C-alpha cells in the first residue's frame, strides 16, 4: 500500500489519492499541441460541446417522452412543446444540435482528409472517428423514430426494408429488426432503448477511444510538418514560448477553442431560436399513419448522399453501392497509398480528388432530396458513379504521387 501523510490542504489530500496534479499535466498543461493549426482543429471541441447539449437536452426530454405508439406523438408535440416549462427550448436545442452535429462531423472529416490526418500512425484516430460517425448515424436515425410522425414511420419502414437485401429476400431479418411485420409498438420500444441507452453508451466509449488514439501520434498540423514534441515542449517549458512549435492544450489552445466555440454558439443559438425548421421536417408533424404514404419520403439531410447512392440503381446493385458507401470511408488510410502527410494542396492529383469528392457528395446530397424526376435522376446517377469511380481511382493516383 502507498504511503499517505497527513494532508496539508484539500488539494494535497486529493493529490495523494488521485494524483490530480499529474492528471492535470497529462490532460491539459503538458498535453502538447502544434502551434501551426487553424480553427478547423477546434471542431473537436465544438463537437464535444454539441454532444453535451444533446446529452443534457435529451435527459430533459426523456423525463416527459412516452415511448408508446398512442402517446409518443402528443407527448412530444403537446406535453413537451406546450405544457412543460421550456420544453420547447430543450426540443429545439436537441433537434438543431442533432442536425448541426453532422455538419460539424463532416467539416471535421473533410479537414482530416484535406490535411492527411489519417496517416502515419493516425489510422486509429480515423477509424475510431468513422466508428463514431456510424454510431452517431444510428443515434440520429433511432431518435428520428421517437416523435412517431409520418416521417418517423415511413423512413423507419424504408430503411429497415433495406435489410431484406434485395433479391436475398431476407424478410425474416427485417421482421426480426422490427419485432413485427411493420413498424409498431415493438419497433418504437426498441429504437427508444437504442436511442437512450445502448448507442449513447457506445458513443461515450468511442469518444474515449478517439481521444486515446490521439495521444501517441499527437494532432496533425496545417503544414504537414513533422514536429519533435519532446524537443519543442522543453523549449516551451524553458520559457521560449514564442520560439517553440508547440503550445499547451490548456490554456493556450483552449483559449482558441473557446473563441471558436463562442462564435459557433452564436450561429447555433440563432438556429435554435430563429431558424430551426430545417432540423424538424414539417412532414413529421403529421402523426404516423400506416395507411397513408407521404408523397415524398426522404431521410434527414446528412443521410442523403448515401441514400442517393442507393436510389439510381436497380435494387440489388443499389444495395451493393450503398453497402460500399457505408464502409469505404473507413478504408481511407489504406486506400491512400502515398506516404505524404501534407495538405492536399501540395499533393498533385489528390488535390483534385479532394475537391471532386466534396462537390460530388454535395451533389449527391441535393439529388437525394428531390424526387427522381429528370434531370435529377440522371444527375444523381452520374454523381453516384463518380463517387464509386473516385474511390477506385484513389489508390492509383496516390501510388504515383511524388514525394512532397
Amino acid at each position, binding site marked *: 500500500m502507498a504511503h499517505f501523510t497527513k494532508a496539508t490542504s484539500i488539494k494535497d489530500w486529493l493529490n495523494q489519492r488521485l494524483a490530480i496534479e499529474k492528471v492535470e499535466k497529462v490532460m491539459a498543461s503538458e498535453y502538447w499541441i502544434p502551434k501551426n493549426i487553424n480553427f478547423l482543429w477546434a471542431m473537436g471541441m465544438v463537437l464535444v460541446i454539441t454532444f453535451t447539449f444533446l446529452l443534457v437536452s435529451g435527459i430533459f426530454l426523456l423525463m416527459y417522452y412516452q415511448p408508446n405508439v398512442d402517446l409518443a406523438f402528443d407527448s412530444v408535440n403537446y406535453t413537451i*412543446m*406546450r405544457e412543460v416549462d421550456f420544453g420547447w427550448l430543450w426540443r429545439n436545442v436537441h433537434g438543431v444540435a442533432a442536425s448541426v452535429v453532422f455538419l460539424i462531423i463532416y467539416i471535421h472529416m473533410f479537414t482530416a482528409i484535406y490535411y492527411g490526418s489519417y496517416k502515419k500512425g493516425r489510422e486509429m484516430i480515423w477509424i475510431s472517428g468513422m466508428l463514431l460517425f456510424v454510431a452517431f448515424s444510428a443515434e440520429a436515425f433511432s431518435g428520428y423514430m421517437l416523435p412517431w410522425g409520418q416521417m418517423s414511420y415511413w423512413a423507419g419502414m424504408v430503411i429497415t426494408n433495406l435489410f431484406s437485401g434485395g433479391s436475398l429476400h431476407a424478410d425474416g431479418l427485417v421482421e426480426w429488426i422490427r419485432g413485427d411485420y411493420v413498424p409498431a409498438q415493438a419497433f418504437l420500444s426498441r429504437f427508444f432503448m437504442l436511442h437512450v441507452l445502448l448507442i449513447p453508451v457506445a458513443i461515450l466509449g468511442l469518444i474515449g477511444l478517439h481521444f486515446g488514439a490521439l495521444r501517441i501520434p499527437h494532432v496533425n498540423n*496545417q503544414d504537414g510538418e513533422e514536429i519533435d514534441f519532446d524537443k519543442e515542449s522543453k523549449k516551451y517549458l524553458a520559457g521560449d514560448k514564442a520560439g517553440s512549435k508547440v503550445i499547451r492544450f490548456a490554456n*493556450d489552445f483552449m*483559449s482558441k477553442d473557446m473563441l471558436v466555440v463562442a462564435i459557433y*454558439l452564436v450561429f447555433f443559438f440563432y438556429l435554435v431560436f430563429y431558424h430551426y425548421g430545417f432540423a424538424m421536417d414539417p412532414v413529421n*408533424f403529421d402523426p404516423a399513419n400506416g395507411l397513408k404514404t407521404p408523397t415524398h419520403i426522404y431521410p434527414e439531410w446528412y443521410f442523403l448522399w448515401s441514400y442517393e447512392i442507393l436510389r439510381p440503381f436497380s435494387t440489388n446493385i443499389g444495395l451493393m453501392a450503398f453497402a460500399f458507401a457505408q464502409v469505404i470511408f473507413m478504408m481511407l488510410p489504406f486506400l491512400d497509398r502515398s506516404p505524404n502527410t501534407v495538405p492536399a494542396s501540395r499533393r498533385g492529383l489528390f488535390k483534385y480528388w479532394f475537391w471532386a469528392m466534396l462537390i460530388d457528395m454535395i451533389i449527391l446530397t441535393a439529388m437525394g432530396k428531390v*424526387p427522381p424526376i429528370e434531370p435529377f435522376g440522371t444527375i444523381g446517377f452520374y454523381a453516384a458513379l463518380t463517387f464509386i469511380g473516385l474511390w477506385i481511382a484513389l489508390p492509383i493516383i496516390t501510388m504515383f504521387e511524388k514525394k512532397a
Partner: protein
Amino acid sequence: MKNKEPLILAVVVFFTLATYYLVEPFAHSIMHKHFESEGFAYKDLPAITKKGNVARGKELVMGAGACTGCHAITSQGLEAPMNAVTAARSYGVNPPDLSNAGAVYDAKFLDALIKNPAHALMVEHKFTPESGKSYPMPKFYGAGGNMDQEVADMVAYLQSIAPKADKLTPAMAFETACGRCHAVRYEKWTQIGEKPEYKKKRDELEFNIRVLDYQDSLAKYMGTLPPDLSIYIRSRGEHYIKTFVENPQQYLKGTAMPRVGVNAEAADKVIEYLEDSGDTKRHERESVGKNVMIYIIIFAIFALLWKREVWRDLH
C-alpha cells in the same frame, strides 16, 4: 506566414450554404406546388351592386330566406333548431352559427353563397346532377322583389350583428369558419364544441360518443374525416394554410374541403388560432431568444479577449 483562416472560413461557409440552399429552399421548390395569395379578393365572384338595408335583411333572414330554419344566431337569442349531432345526421354537418358570419366571411362571398352555395364554395364537382346529391344548403331564389337587393339586405344584416373586426377573437373566427369540420384537440376543440372538463367518467364518455356520432356523419358527407388541425401550423405552415383556405382546389383537385370564403382579417385570426395551438410558445421563444443571443455575444467577446491575452506570449 500569411493568415489563411479567413479564406478557410469563407470556403466552409460557402459549401455549408450551398448544401443548405440545395436541400432546403431548392428541394422544397421542386417538391411542392407554390401559389401566391390573392389577398382573399375572390376575383371570380361578382361585386355587390346594391346597398343593403339592415331592417329588410333581418326580415329576410328570419323569414323568406329561411336561414334560421337551419342556422343558429345565438347573439340574437336564436338557438339552433337541432343539436349538432342531429343536424349532422340530416345535413352531414352542423350549419354554423351565423352570429359572427358578417365579420368572418367576405361580403362578396356571402352574397354569392346565398345565391348559389355550391358554386361559391367550389364544391359543385361533388353535387353534379349525375351524382343525385344536392348541396344541403338551398339556393335562395328570391322573395318576390329584386333578388340582388334582397341578398344585399341579408348580407348587410349579417354584418350589422357581427362583432367589429377588433372584437373578433381567433377562436370565434376559427369556430365559425372551420370548427364544424375540423377538430383541434390541443385546444380541446371538437366539431360539436369545446370539450368541457368532466368530473364523472360517464359524462365524458357520453360526450365522446356524441363526437364520434357527429364524426361518422361528417366523414360520410365529406368522403373523409377532415384532419385535426392541432399542429398544422408546423406541418403545413402559414403560407400553405392561407392559400389552401383561399382556394383548396388549386392544391387538391376535387377535394371536399370547400372554399370557406373568409376575409383577409379573419384568415389572420384563424392562423393566430392555429399558432396558439401548434406554436404556443412563440412569444416566449422570441424573448428568450433575444436574451440568449445577447448573452452569447458577450461570452464571445470575453472569449476573444481571453484568447488575445493567452496568445500574446505565444507569437
